[in-house]
């Protein structure tokens, strides 16, 4: 960054003389840069001009209805599974920090189980829940009042995907939320308790709103990761992007072409999600961390860090402008 910020103004001597600066050619950088470009171009041409890839078929399928349907399902599945994962993750984190040891153990057990088993196994398990419980029954105990569903009808591949991905994310996210809650200054809790709030109110009104600001940036990562994890749903035929692409290539054997189609869509979705994530981070990121920390050293440190960051950013944008000119 600083290396590209090149001084152009001449150097002033004590007698008022101005001596210009002759720029230095960084020969080593040029050699390494050229080699790197050659390698990248070689790899790219090896793929782009590969005669075994029928690019026209890639473009045929890129906007085909089945692929587009798959994209829509993938987006929905990612959003819903993330929502399930985040909400349940918050509940688990609060349980893990609860005073009641039973709640702590249940949360710890849940997290251990869902982090300890592969998500692929979980997906297949949910999809085949009917082997375990042919009917799902909600019934008031000791009466005949209740409702019953056929498990195979409830547990569609979409539902299995949501449960498998959502419950799994919850286990991971609980740890993030717990860290966020613990990062909120202890003084906030004390002030709330001193103000007459119960522990539940303190958590709900004072601590969680601040903890959530801290954990918003990681949620963006979780969502981006979820976009691609949905491709695992292929094992339960979830009619998402990957499932539809694979069903097409199983018929016409254009495996690589359809993988490229799917990859292009995943990359587009990721790019869009990344854009929103960076907006979220700018809105909540460092500012929120500064907000929840007590004043004093940490606050000053973060504020200085922020100033330094904006300073380097402005230098970077200046040098970018300079190079485009």
């Amino acid at each position: 960054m600083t290396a590209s910020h090149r001084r152009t103004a001449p150097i002033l001597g004590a007698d008022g003389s101005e001596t210009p600066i002759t720029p230095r050619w960084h020969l080593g950088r040029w050699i390494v840069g050229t080699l790197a470009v050659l390698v990248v171009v070689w790899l790219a041409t090896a793929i782009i001009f590969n005669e075994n890839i029928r690019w026209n078929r890639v473009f045929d399928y890129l906007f085909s209805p089945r692929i587009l349907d798959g994209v829509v399902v993938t987006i929905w599945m990612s959003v819903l599974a993330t929502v399930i994962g985040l909400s349940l993750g918050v509940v688990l984190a609060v349980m893990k920090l609860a005073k009641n040891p039973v709640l702590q153990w249940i949360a710890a057990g849940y997290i251990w189980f869902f982090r300890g088993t592969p998500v692929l196994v979980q997906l297949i398990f949910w999809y085949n829940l009917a082997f375990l419980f042919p009917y799902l029954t909600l019934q008031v105990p000791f009466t005949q009042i209740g409702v019953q569903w056929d498990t195979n009808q409830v547990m569609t591949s979409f539902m299995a995907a949501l449960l498998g991905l959502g419950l799994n994310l919850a286990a991971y996210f609980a740890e993030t939320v717990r860290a966020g809650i613990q990062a909120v200054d202890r003084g906030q809790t004390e002030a709330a308790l001193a103000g007459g709030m119960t522990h539940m109110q303190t958590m709900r009104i004072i601590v969680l709103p601040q903890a959530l600001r801290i954990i918003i940036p990681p949620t963006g990562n979780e969502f981006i990761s979820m976009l691609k994890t949905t491709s695992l749903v292929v094992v339960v035929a979830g009619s998402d992007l990957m499932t539809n692409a694979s069903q097409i290539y199983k018929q016409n054997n254009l495996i690589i072409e359809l993988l490229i189609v799917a990859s292009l869509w995943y990359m587009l979705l990721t790019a869009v999600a990344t854009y929103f994530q960076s907006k979220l981070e700018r809105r909540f990121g460092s500012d929120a961390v500064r907000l929840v920390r007590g004043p004093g050293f940490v606050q000053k440190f973060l504020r200085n860090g922020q100033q330094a960051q904006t300073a380097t950013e402005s230098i970077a944008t200046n040098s970018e402008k300079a190079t485009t000119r």
Partner: protein
Amino acid sequence: MTDPLVRAIAVTKSFGHNKVLNGVDFEVRPGEVSCIIGPSGSGKSTFLRCINALETVDGGGLEVAGAQVGYTLEGESYRPWRDRDFAKFRAGIGMVFQRFNLYAHLDAAENVATSLINVARMDKAAARRRAMEELDRVGLADHATKRPHQLSGGQQQRVAIARALAMDPTLMLFDEPTSALDPELVEEVLESMKALALGGMTMVVVTHEIGFAREVGDTLSFFDAGTIIESGPPASVLSDASSPRTRAFLDKVL
């Protein structure tokens, strides 16, 4: 003489093997301002936090307004309070912290109004009005919509005082309220506290501001190694302290 509002009888408290309070006897009567001084680590802040049950007491007895803190007498024995008993008890006691502890995600008015809405069950408009009145009383009505980090330390501490007062407390606890402030901001906070004392509020103030203790305090207690080793009217404690330990401390801070 009226009954004391706070009465501590041989209060003890340990953190692990560290005995922080070692038999504290202490009394505050309604309307009194009681200042507590002493070296850091002498247990004065811990004792203050015991009064509103932010810390629990291990031994002895601690009564506020005639009731044992943390326990209710049921027949022959005391039963520990539930969470909501603690909340109800603390709602009647205002506390001001060394590090202000304003709610970082709320603006000044919301900081004051939060307990009114969620604890006193006031409706939002009324709570907001009440919050503005309290902010006006500490001279910060213009800063109602600012977040804590946009306020100076002195302003934050005055908002914290307004937040505590909004709940109409019968007792105010101050835990070194000016220790985290830049020197030129100390005065504005002490002024707010003086006004409160003149209004007849019962106050327990842990402080290093000897001048405030002398001017406003009705009693001054000197804490050392978990006990009060000197107590009485500020003028007499400050001028002719009997224990050499108190005199050594006063020589340093005066």
